[in-house]
């Protein structure tokens, strides 16, 4: 079955041939490889939240709902320490998706990832609420994945 992904900014639609018995993760990886938009976020726009356990399940009947996907997208340039990467996300994707991708992209261990936060523009820029949508932006949005300074406490 073919899945077509179309964006509203003039880029050519992408088509993927995928079967119901293939997993959600396989589809995500193929969409990611095309570089058009973050696959996990795109599928969540249609299928709802996809926890880790759902990624290894076959697409099955869900494939029917994914036949033609149309999305608005926004570019995010993410910095982590000395590394930088760019990626497109659906404008309705939450900032948590950027955090998730960043940790994967920069090979951050899960326990370290849990101590990081996103800031806009600069490492000490304003914090981003990861439950909020990224939203539209004509320019590529710059964000930093940082580890907040340690806070003393009374332990």
């Amino acid at each position: 079955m073919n899945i077509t992904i179309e964006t509203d900014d003039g880029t050519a639609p992408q088509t993927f041939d995928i079967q119901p018995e293939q997993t959600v993760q396989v589809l995500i990886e193929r969409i990611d490889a095309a570089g058009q938009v973050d696959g996990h976020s795109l599928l969540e726009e249609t299928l709802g939240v996809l926890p880790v356990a759902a990624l290894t399940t076959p697409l099955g009947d869900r494939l029917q709902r994914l036949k033609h996907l149309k999305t608005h997208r926004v570019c995010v340039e993410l910095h982590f320490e000395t590394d930088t990467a760019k990626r497109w996300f659906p404008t309705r994707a939450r900032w948590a998706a950027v955090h998730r991708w960043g940790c994967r992209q920069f090979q951050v261990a899960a326990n370290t990832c849990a101590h990081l936060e996103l800031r806009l523009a600069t490492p000490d820029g304003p914090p981003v609420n990861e439950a909020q949508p990224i939203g539209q932006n004509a320019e590529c949005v710059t964000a930093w994945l940082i580890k907040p300074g340690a806070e003393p406490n009374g332990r």
Partner: protein
Amino acid sequence: MVADALSQDLESEAFKHGAGQAFWALEERRGDVLYIRLMAPDGRSYLLRLTCDQYRTEPLLGQFVDPATRQPVTSAWPQGDQHLSGWLKWNPGELFVCWPGDRAGLAHHPEWRAQRQWDRPPNPLVNYLDFMRRCLWVPGNGYHRAAA
């Protein structure tokens, strides 16, 4: 003059940014006392009472209070693992914020006073709220999120 400084900081870009991001919302101001609602990533929210007398000179005093009675009770406090409990003391009879930017924290740890944690940018109010934001929103800080 003290009230003016607090008013200025309530109008600061940093305070407005946090409100715009839905990290916090000012519910009420009564003189030097602010009631600020802090939003958590699991959809819950907590009402923080901030006593701001001697603003910019002394640290703020924060306590989570029951929204109806406005009294500090255990059930009004965000709770979590041992990491979070290092900062937030939610045991009955011992309800205080154990952090160098809080007045009660300094009462328990006078050695922290020299850090002048409350006197850091962008301003004492946002500095305090940003600490609470990190407690709630950075998963590694141990806040127990309610199941979705």
